[in-house]
């Protein structure tokens, strides 16, 4: 038997195996000692969050979920952060006072802590408190599942089940009243729905190149959003890379939730797996596509506006590298100055719910871990600065 014959009879290696092998090679270097736990997380059942539908009466659902011991991680976060901060302050104050006046400082410390208000919290910790988004999750280590969503008397579903980490990019976008918002890669629509839950979007454009996936977006809008609000969302099916040609610089906030290697899906599901041999080229082109989509997103943003870029991959090539390249291209080719925002307060705020990677050069990354099996989710926020980059010699960039 010749070599050709051997190849023909060689067993087909499942794409999930190829994906895992690929990840073993690259992520073990990136994540080092953390990789075994992340790998285990990817290979076990993921955790969900229940995004409450504010367009449906939420009181009884809230009650039901709280009886099950689930909590709204969005509203819990600042409360917890305040407690931690308070703890730290109290500790400091306690230490200071015990030095000055042995023993009798305790009462005053408590008073101080109780009266600490939102105004006293550091500004970034306060920032995302105003969101109307409510998402329930079960505590760390609790593997209870949510029941499927149920329709209310008007036929709208009561919650949307999603990876709770998917909300972080939306929270990072921090939609303000009357903002014009673009969701460039929107289907099937989980984040679009979350954006609508803020209740403050001035205008929302949801785009996705895939017609079949756009249908799913429509379906979600139909299942969760009343007609009059649904009709204010403009759904389109353009290739996001061409968005700039449609008139740029009009949005206050742009979400660029790009196609990626969908790491969790790739190690678990054979269907539609990007690690299939025949999709090698497509996979290799992903970082390029991501960069182009992010560029289009940046160009669609008003000066002073913000872009959040996100993926559900751990790959630095699809995450930090895309950001770095985009910032560089924006400056050199479009004369647009970009500021990469610091999101480290997210790590403080949500440390109880998610397990964050502490070594991200840019942006934030949620790592799967069995005790909090959400993610992977990478998100990074960019601000398009007003004014242009002053002409300067290229050498100063490198």
């Amino acid at each position, binding site marked *: 038997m010749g070599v050709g014959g051997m190849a023909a009879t060689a067993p087909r290696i499942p794409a999930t195996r190829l994906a895992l092998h690929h990840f073993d090679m690259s992520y073990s270097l990136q994540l080092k000692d953390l990789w*075994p736990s992340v*790998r*285990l997380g990817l*290979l076990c059942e993921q955790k969900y969050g229940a995004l409450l539908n504010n367009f449906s009466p939420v009181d009884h659902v809230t009650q039901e979920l709280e009886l099950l011991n689930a909590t709204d991680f969005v509203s819990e976060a600042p409360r917890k952060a305040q407690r931690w901060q308070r703890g730290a302050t109290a500790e400091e104050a306690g230490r200071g006072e015990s030095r000055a006046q042995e023993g009798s400082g305790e009462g005053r410390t408590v008073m101080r802590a109780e009266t600490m208000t939102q105004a006293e919290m550091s500004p970034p910790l306060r920032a995302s408190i105003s969101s109307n988004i409510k998402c329930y999750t079960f505590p760390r*280590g609790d*593997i209870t599942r949510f029941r499927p969503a149920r329709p209310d008397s008007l036929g709208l579903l009561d919650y949307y089940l999603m990876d709770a980490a998917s909300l972080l990019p939306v929270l990072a976008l921090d939609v303000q009243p009357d903002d014009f918002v673009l969701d460039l890669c929107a289907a099937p629509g989980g984040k679009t729905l979350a954006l609508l839950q803020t209740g403050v979007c001035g205008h929302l454009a949801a785009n996705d190149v895939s017609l079949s996936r756009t249908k799913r977006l429509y379906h979600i809008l139909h299942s969760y959003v009343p007609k009059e609000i649904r009709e204010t969302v403009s759904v389109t099916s353009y290739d996001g890379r061409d968005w700039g040609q449609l008139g740029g610089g009009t949005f206050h906030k742009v979400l660029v939730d790009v196609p990626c290697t969908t790491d969790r899906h790739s190690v678990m599901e054979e269907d539609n797996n990007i690690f299939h041999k025949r999709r090698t080229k497509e996979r290799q082109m992903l970082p390029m596509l991501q960069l182009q989509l992010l560029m289009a997103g940046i160009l669609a943003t008003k000066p002073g506006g913000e872009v959040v870029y996100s993926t559900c991959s751990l790959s630095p090539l699809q995450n930090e590298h895309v950001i770095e390249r985009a910032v560089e291209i924006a400056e050199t080719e479009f004369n647009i100055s970009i500021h990469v925002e610091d999101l480290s307060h997210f790590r403080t705020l949500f440390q109880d719910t998610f397990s964050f990677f502490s070594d991200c050069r840019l942006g934030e990354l949620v790592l799967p871990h*069995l*005790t909090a099996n959400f993610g992977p989710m990478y998100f990074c926020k960019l601000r398009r600065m007003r004014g242009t980059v002053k002409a300067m010699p290229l050498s100063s960039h490198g």
Partner: protein
Amino acid sequence: MAGRLLSGCGRAAAVPRALPAAPGLCPRRGCGEAAALRAMGFSEEQARRLLGLQPRLGPQRREAAAAQLLLLGLSAEAALGLLERSPRLLRMPTEQLQERAGELRRLGLDGGQLQRAVSRCPQLFTLPRRRMAAAVRLLRERCLFTAEQLREVLGTCPAVLLEEPRLLHHHFQYAYFRMGVQQKEMVKARLFRMPFAELRNRHIFLERRGLYQTPHKGQTQTSNPKLKDILQLPEKDFLASLAHSTPEEYEVFKKLLAREEKEEEGEEEDRDVL
């Protein structure tokens, strides 16, 4: 009621005839028995304990049972301990006990090994013969353990004989095919001492963490941890030194895996119905 009393009297009446009276006057019942037991090597205290077991039992039974155990090479204390833990042995017909002792001897179990086996698994003597034969056949013919290995397995994990052959086979196949371990290593690692579910937990935990790979056909060298370590380390040490993980993580994993398994079974049943 009257009948039972009568037959009790009858048995009691038979005692003096069966056993020559011990020298000297001995008004207390069982005194002659005690002497006989002491003659077999039991200490006074051991004899007293032995007599205290099922006091109404005929002395022949007690002696015969004790003798069979001693003949297998058990120490007096071990024999006594066994009888204390499974008093059923005393009620077993002598021939049956004899026969089982013969079988265990044929399987190569005697002396110290039998002593250990019996203390781990007192049911060795009372377990139905068919069960035992089935388990032995499975280990020899389907799992292909050598006679020597079988002896070692029975000596160290005698409870295999109580296992349902189907589950035992599954346990073996899992280690052989899924983990790629040879019989020799299984024996050395005391494979069957760990309940199957726990073995599976530990193995899949390591595997999903990227720390264990099923060897390819013919592959002999792997960087997998030794089966012995996977099985014999206490959970705390297994987590710390082999899996490099924490109890919190492992606890969640066990819950998830149990749920996965339950749901797979459900799916299989659904398929069977279709």
